[in-house]
C-alpha cells in the first residue's frame, strides 16, 4: 500500500510537469520579456515598501498638524518635504500607495466576481435569461458611470471606505460581464457541458467548475488590466475629492493639492511624486498584464 501511495505522488508530479499550469506559463513568459520582468520587480518593490512602511513610519505623526513645519521642501528629515499641515509627504505617499492598491485590488476582485457570475449565468443559460440580462447590461453600459459614482458618493449615508469600494465595484463590472458572457456562450455549445448535464451535475457547479476553468485565462488577463484601471479611477476620484473619506490618504488625495496653481508651480514635492508613482505603477501593471495576455494565448507567446 505504501508503495502505491509513493508511486501515485510521483505520477501526479510527473503529470504536473507535462501539463504546466497557467501560473507557470505566465512566469515563463514574464522571464522572457525583460520589460515585463523589470516591471514585476519594480512593482514588487513598490508594493513591499508600501505595505511594510507602517513598520518604520509613525502613522499618528503623519496625521498630526505641525504649523512650524509647513510646506518644507525636500530635506534629509522629510525626504519629500511637507504639506500644508507640516506632515511628511513621503510617509503619506507610502500610506496612500497602500490604500490605493488595497482598494484597487478589492474593487477588481469584487467587480470581477460579480461580472463573472453575471456573465456565466447569461452565457450558460442563454435564451430568454441571456436576452433579459443583456438588455439590462446594455442599459447599464450607457450610463455615465463617473457621474453616477460621484453622485452616489455624495448622497450615500454613513460614507466610508467600504461603501466607497461597493459603489466603485457596482459600476466596474459591466465590461467584464459582457466579455465573459460572449466566451461562455460559445463554450456552452461544447459537448463537455452537455456531458456534465447528462451526468447530473447541477447548473451552478457546471458554471463554476466546468465552464469557468476554461475561461480562467481570460479572466486573469482581464483582471490584471482592470486592476490598473481601477487604481486609476480611485485615485482620479480621490483627486476630485470624491474618493477616500477624509483622514484616509490616497495617492489621489496627494495629487489633489495640485488644484491650486501656486502649489502646482512652487510646491511640486507635494503632488508630483504621487503623480509619477501612479504613472509608474500603471505602466508596470500593464506590462505585466501584456505578458499574462501573451501567456494565455499560445500563438502570441514569446517564450
Amino acid at each position: 500500500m505504501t508503495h502505491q501511495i509513493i508511486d501515485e505522488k510521483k505520477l501526479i508530479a510527473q503529470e504536473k510537469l507535462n501539463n504546466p499550469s497557467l501560473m507557470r506559463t505566465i512566469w515563463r513568459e514574464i522571464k522572457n520579456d525583460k520589460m515585463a520582468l523589470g516591471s514585476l520587480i519594480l512593482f514588487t518593490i513598490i508594493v513591499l515598501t508600501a505595505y511594510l512602511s507602517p513598520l518604520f513610519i509613525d502613522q499618528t505623526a503623519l496625521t498630526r498638524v505641525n504649523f512650524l513645519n509647513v510646506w518644507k521642501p525636500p530635506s534629509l528629515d522629510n525626504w519629500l518635504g511637507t504639506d500644508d499641515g507640516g506632515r511628511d509627504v513621503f510617509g503619506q505617499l507610502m500610506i496612500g500607495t497602500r490604500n490605493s492598491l488595497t482598494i484597487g485590488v478589492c474593487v477588481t476582485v469584487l467587480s470581477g466576481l460579480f461580472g463573472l457570475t453575471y456573465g456565466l449565468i447569461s452565457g450558460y443559460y442563454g435564451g430568454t435569461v441571456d436576452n433579459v440580462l443583456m438588455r439590462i447590461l446594455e442599459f447599464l453600459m450607457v450610463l455615465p458611470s463617473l457621474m453616477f459614482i460621484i453622485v452616489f458618493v455624495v448622497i450615500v449615508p454613513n460614507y466610508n471606505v467600504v461603501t466607497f469600494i461597493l459603489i466603485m465595484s457596482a459600476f466596474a463590472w459591466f465590461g467584464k460581464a459582457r466579455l465573459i458572457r460572449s466566451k461562455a456562450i460559445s463554450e456552452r455549445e461544447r459537448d463537455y457541458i452537455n456531458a456534465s448535464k447528462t451526468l447530473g451535475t447541477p447548473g451552478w457547479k457546471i458554471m463554476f467548475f466546468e465552464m469557468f476553468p476554461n475561461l480562467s485565462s481570460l479572466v486573469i488577463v482581464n483582471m490584471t488590466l482592470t486592476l490598473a484601471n481601477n487604481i486609476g479611477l480611485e485615485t482620479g476620484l480621490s483627486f476630485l475629492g470624491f474618493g477616500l473619506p477624509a483622514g484616509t490618504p490616497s495617492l489621489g488625495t496627494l495629487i489633489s493639492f495640485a488644484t491650486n496653481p501656486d502649489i502646482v508651480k512652487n510646491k511640486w514635492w507635494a503632488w508630483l511624486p504621487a503623480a509619477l508613482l501612479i504613472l509608474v505603477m500603471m505602466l508596470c501593471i500593464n506590462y505585466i498584464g501584456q505578458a499574462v495576455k501573451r501567456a494565455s494565448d499560445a500563438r502570441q507567446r514569446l517564450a
Partner: protein
Amino acid sequence: MSLLKVNDLKVHYPIRGGFFRRVVDHVRAVDGISFELQPGETYGLVGESGCGKTTSGRAIIGLNKVTSGELLFEGKDLSSMGRVERRKYTRDIQMIFQDPYSSLNVRKNVLNIIAEPLRNFERLSPKEELLRVQELVARVGLSPESIYKYPHQFSGGQRQRIGIARALTLNPKLIIADEPVSALDVSVQAQVLNFMQEIQDEFNLTYLFISHDLGIIQHMCDRIGIMYRGRFVEEGTADEIYSNPQHVYTKRLIAAIPEMNPEKRFEKMHLRQAINQEYQTDYNNYFDKDGRMFDLKKISDTHSVAMQ
C-alpha cells in the same frame, strides 16, 4: 415491458420574424416519432444529417426540450417530470458523445472526469473513488497510470474510451450513443464498436445507437428505425431493413452503400436507376401533398413502413 417507449415525440423550434419578433412558424426537428426499446437490445436510429436523429436522442436524455409526446422509461413519463424527479433517472440513462475532443473538459484529468458522476450521486471516500475509477479505466483498456493525465495526452479512440468509462460509472440501463465513432479514424472505429458490444453483455446495457453510417448500424443493431425530415420512414429488424426495404427512401439509402465487388457494379447501377424510377412514379404513395411522410403502418409483427 419495454425499457423505453417513445410515444409521438415532437421537438419544435420557433422561427421568429417580423418587426416584433413574433413566432411565425416552427422548425419541426422531430415531428412525431414513436418506438420502443427492449432491455438488452441495440436499436439503431439512422438518417441523413439534419433528419432529427440526434435531436431525438438529446430529447430523450433531457438536453433538448420536448414539445409534446411521451418518453416512458420503465413506464414512467420522463417528459412530464420536474427537474428533481427526473434527476433520479439520470443514473439510468447515459450518453456517449460524438466528438471525443469537445466532450471531455480539457482542464480536468481523467480521474476528475470519470469521478464527476460519482461525486454527484455517491458519497465515496477519496480512496474508494480512486479504486472505482481505476477499475473503470482498466476495464476500458487504458493503463491505470493514465488517470492523472489530461485529455490532450490521449488519442481520439482513447478519449472515446474515457467517455464510455464516464458513461458506465453509474451503471446505467440505457446508453444513448450519438455517432460514437464518426469522429474517429476508420482503423479504430471497429475497436471501439467491438468494445461497446463486449460491455453491453457485461453491464447488461441497452443501446440507442444513432448513426448515419449504414455499415456500422448493420454491424451493431438488432432493430433499426430510419428517419427522414423528423419522422420515421421505416422500422424493422436489421435483416428486414437491409434485405427487404419497403419505403422508397430506405431503398435509396440501402442502394447508396458502395459496392465492393467490381463484378456487381452494373447490377447495382441498374438497381439504383430502377429505384429512382420508382421514386418519380410512386412519389404519392410515400409522401402526402405537403411532402410529409405518412404514419407508420405495420406490414408484419416487426416491420412497419410509412406508406399509404
